[in-house]
């Protein structure tokens, strides 16, 4: 019998990262929260901070959510990050669990497998996470270090 795909060993460091394409937005009529959008593209111009602060104040104090545009991060950069994350989750499970999350041991960089039982439903949770990609500014590929919490 031919081996199934899952049995073929994968080298996660060289696996290709396919382009990420966002799914279509929903066409359903949903009750959307009206959120303030602030455009920070002229942040350093005179008077702009005061104008933006005034625009944002209600959102900060009463709404708690808002949208930032004009931040200068290109969509292709965002899509590339989403592509990398997706490629990780598409790795075979045995590959993903090689570095599991270990919060109790300060080893927070790992993968958390969806193992939690959802009450008595017979289902397990579906969400998978890599919860702690804590980034140190001085870290490099060869030596990723953080100080202990």
């Amino acid at each position, binding site marked *: 019998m031919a081996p199934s795909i899952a049995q073929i060993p994968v080298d*996660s*460091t060289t696996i290709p*990262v396919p382009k*990420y394409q*966002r*799914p*279509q*937005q*929903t*066409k*359903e009529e949903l*009750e*959307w*929260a009206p959120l303030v*959008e602030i455009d*920070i593209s002229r942040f350093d111009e005179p008077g702009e901070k*005061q104008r*933006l*602060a005034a625009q944002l104040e209600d959102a*900060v*104090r*009463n709404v*708690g*959510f808002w949208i930032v545009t004009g931040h200068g*991060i290109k*969509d292709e*950069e*965002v899509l590339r*990050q*989403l592509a990398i*994350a*997706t490629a*990780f*989750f598409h790795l075979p499970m045995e*590959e993903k669990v*090689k*570095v*599991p999350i270990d*919060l*109790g041991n*300060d080893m927070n*960089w790992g*993968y958390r497998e969806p*193992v*939690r039982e959802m009450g008595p*439903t*017979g289902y397990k*949770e579906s*969400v*998978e996470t*890599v919860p*702690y*990609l*804590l*980034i*140190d500014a001085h*870290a490099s590929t060869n030596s*990723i*270090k953080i100080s202990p*919490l």
Partner: protein
Amino acid sequence: MKDVKVHPFVKAHWDEIAPFHRKLFERVAKPLYILIASMLELPADYFISRNAYDKRSEDWLRWMMHPPRPREYYDAVESYGIGGHTDQSSLTLLFEQNVAGLQMLTTDGVWKWVKPVPGGITINAGELFSHLTKGYVKATIHRVHAPVDDQISEERLGCIYFSLMNVVSLNNHFNIRTAPLFALHLVRNCFAWGTSLKTS
């Protein structure tokens, strides 16, 4: 400093992930800290100087994947999910991927959907910021809702940046100790169900 075990996949892409993370702090979080400081009539660098990214950033990035599930799954597990919660961050940055799921609780007590805005980054404030400003900054309750019918077969990917300000600086300036709380209470409750935790 100590070495931390990193997944080989993450390590392989580190040179792209780390600069992106840094950019989020510089281009998005930093301007917001400046604006909120100005609302409070504080010096512009008041919050940034307490973030001290170069010394020891507490900011972190989180990837989440909700693979597609049938409607029966969502109906069955609805009462057992995390439900409404606030973040423990000071600011949370969320990248849109178009699959509707995020809902926020409005001041009227009504859940409303957070709409994806092309090119926009969705921001919400968390408990740390609310605490430091005595509630001036609102940490709003939000939740992830089951997908709607025309997106139920889509994967829902989350790429979330949590900015926390620097705990070491906070200890100096505010004399509060946040780390044990994060390690033992909030982190466990929010992120670690079902894992074997060593809390001793």
